[in-house]
């Protein structure tokens, strides 16, 4: 039996889960220039919120809505009351990253204190499966793929076809110039926190539902992988994050099939190192962005 259909199908599935979170992460970094290392903890927090309100019964559509709301709320509050005061004081990038690490730890340990010694598991009813091209996928997995594609299309539409999206792109390229052109960069940054938080929350909820079980540290390894996807695609480039997630998803599954499952995680890091050597600005960034690297 050929492994290729399975590699493509489940590589795409993993890529979709990664892409939602990676796009949110890179979008926020590109506009606010804040390396938000609390992103993984916020993602995990959204899982807890969905589990608590949904009482352990998984519902993807309700979960997406709840994840978006909870993620956006936490993210906006975090950006407004924790990040912005430091930004106004001119805190260095490294120090800012340390602040976000601190917040990440606070969230993580708070969730641990709630969780106690247990792992939370969703009550999963029997799922219908769909078989095609020698691959069997569950209804839930197909819905996750569909939801991710819709969300990516929505992000594309926001960035390309709305004035707000234009303002976001302008602020990401040159905040000062954007402000000179009349763009309210404060409003744009607020929107960036909102949108990235919503994507973060959705990513967390879908991760929790897809794995079936989670605890306070579930978001950690996933966050690292989505950061890798974001960097591969080009930091601050949402389309790059989508491509990066696709690359990670497919190559990891292929490595597991062709070489050994031992190499599943190793491959992602090897790709990152190669990309940073060959094309440090990321796969998606244009050559014109060399100026950004210098200045």
């Amino acid at each position, binding site marked *: *039996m050929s*492994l290729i259909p*399975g590699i493509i199908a*489940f590589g795409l*599935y*993993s890529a979709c889960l990664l892409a939602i979170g990676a796009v949110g992460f890179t979008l926020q970094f590109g506009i*606010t*220039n*804040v390396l938000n290392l609390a992103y993984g903890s916020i993602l995990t927090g959204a899982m807890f919120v969905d589990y608590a309100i949904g009482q352990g019964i998984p519902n993807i559509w309700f979960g997406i809505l709840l994840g978006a709301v909870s993620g956006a709320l936490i993210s906006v509050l975090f950006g407004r009351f924790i990040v912005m005061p430091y*930004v*106004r*004081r*001119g805190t260095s*990038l490294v120090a800012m990253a*340390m*602040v976000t*690490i*601190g917040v990440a*730890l*606070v969230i993580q*340990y708070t969730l*641990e204190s709630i*969780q*106690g*010694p*247990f*792992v939370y*598991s*969703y009550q*999963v009813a*029997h*799922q219908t*499966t769909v078989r095609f091209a020698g691959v*069997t*996928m*569950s209804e839930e997995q197909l819905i996750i793929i569909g939801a991710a594609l819709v969300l990516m299309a929505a992000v594309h539409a926001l960035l390309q076809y709305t004035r707000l999206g234009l303002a976001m792109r302008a*602020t990401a390229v040159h*905040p*000062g110039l954007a*402000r000179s052109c009349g763009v309210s*960069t404060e409003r744009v940054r607020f929107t960036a926190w909102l949108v990235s938080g919503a994507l973060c929350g959705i990513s967390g909820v879908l*991760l929790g539902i*897809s*794995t*079936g*079980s989670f*605890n*306070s*540290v*579930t978001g950690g*390894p*996933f966050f690292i992988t989505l950061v890798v996807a974001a960097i591969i695609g080009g930091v601050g480039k949402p389309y790059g994050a989508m491509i990066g997630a696709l690359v990670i998803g497919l190559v990891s*599954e292929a490595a*597991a*099939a062709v070489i*050994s*499952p*031992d190499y*599943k*995680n190793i491959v992602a890091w090897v790709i990152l190192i190669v990309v940073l050597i060959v094309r440090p600005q990321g796969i998606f960034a244009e050559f014109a962005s060399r100026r950004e690297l210098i200045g």
Partner: protein
Amino acid sequence: MGNLVRYVGRDRYGMDRPRGYTKLSRHPAVRMAMSVACAVTLAACASGGTSSGGGSSGTLQIANFDPFSGPNSAYGYYEQAGCVSAVNLINAAGGVSGHKLTCTIVDSRGDPADAVPAAQQMLATASNIVGIVDQDSGCLTVTVPLFNAAHIPDLSIGGDIPFDHNHYPYFWRTIPGDDVAGYSFAAYLKNDTKYTKVASVFTNDQSAQGNVPGLLEGSKILHLGIVANETLALDQTSYATEIQRLIAAHPQVMVLESDPQTAGVFFGQLKQANGLMPTVLTSGTVGTSFDKAIIAAIGRADFLKYFVRVVQFAPSAGYAWTVFDKALLSAAKAGQVKNPAAYANSIYSEDPYDNVNMIALAMLAAHSTKPAVFNPYIRKVTEGSTVVHTFAQGKAALAAGKTIDYVGVEGQIHFDKYQNSAGEWGVFQPLTNKQLQVLPASLVSAAEGH
């Protein structure tokens, strides 16, 4: 006019930056103090927690160094149930040389990176720790040297293979190593099943991988075929490729250890691929979280149908166990233990119960509460002439001038030259903990080629 400033550009965040505007918060000394405060706060948050153990002067502490948070947190509570049960009985019998004992929780988080600072903090802040009980699989190589350097006896049920040939005088292990566990799976499959084609599926952490060499070697010795040997990366969102490879190998049975989250994803996708098969779980899968994750993935009926668990065995019967069980129930009534039924038949509670008793009896036998003095007596209280089953019995026998052989809930403990004690293995139904079979040490030895 005093507030007039000149803007000279924008910072890295695109914010306007004034020049010549000094606030107190920018004073170098204040910023340094804030940085130090942040660093201290972060360090406090990052390190493992040490809960108050109520160590008043005169009270001797038994440190329960275990994961109480994180993916393996169930083990900490198992150990604590055994520890408090023993300590309560010891204190009721008058304590040790006038000293009461208490169990102090030290959260290792089950990860070496967190266990080391937790251990160092524990050793630095507590002066009256006389013994440590732990289930520290995966962390022993980093924590045992610290405890040994501090001259504190560590009675462990961690299975790290390097300690099969232990040379630390303060480290005692009362269960076999993880590699012996691997031989026990081979012994079970050979002697109690008809399966000959075996798949080895373990996650890539040290604790789980410790089972693999014994399983592979034991299968080879007993002429079982290992048709698949898969390593699962922890906490992935998909194991579809691994499952395809596994199914393609056509195994009849699978031996597996993983954390709950990985197991949930793996078995959910295995069922999706119509690949469920008889599965032998290891002691690393003990805990309600694992069972719940599997049930959530495949349903209770399939869990009962396909799974068994092979773990170190302690006979949940006899006088010693009856005393332990009563102590457990009393601790539950006192609010020290929740859900005592989960711990009554578990080696992970029975073993620390015996370990605490041995520490206490060693102190009495040595007439000293100094660890450096009583440490050698931990072996001696299991080699004497008078068999005792409880601390109270041992205390009375020692007071009468006799040498004792403590035979507790686990049965006879015999420390070899590496201060390891082997034991029997049992096959249990995971959900109900119903004992299905007992694997005597002789069968496991045969799998080892002895």
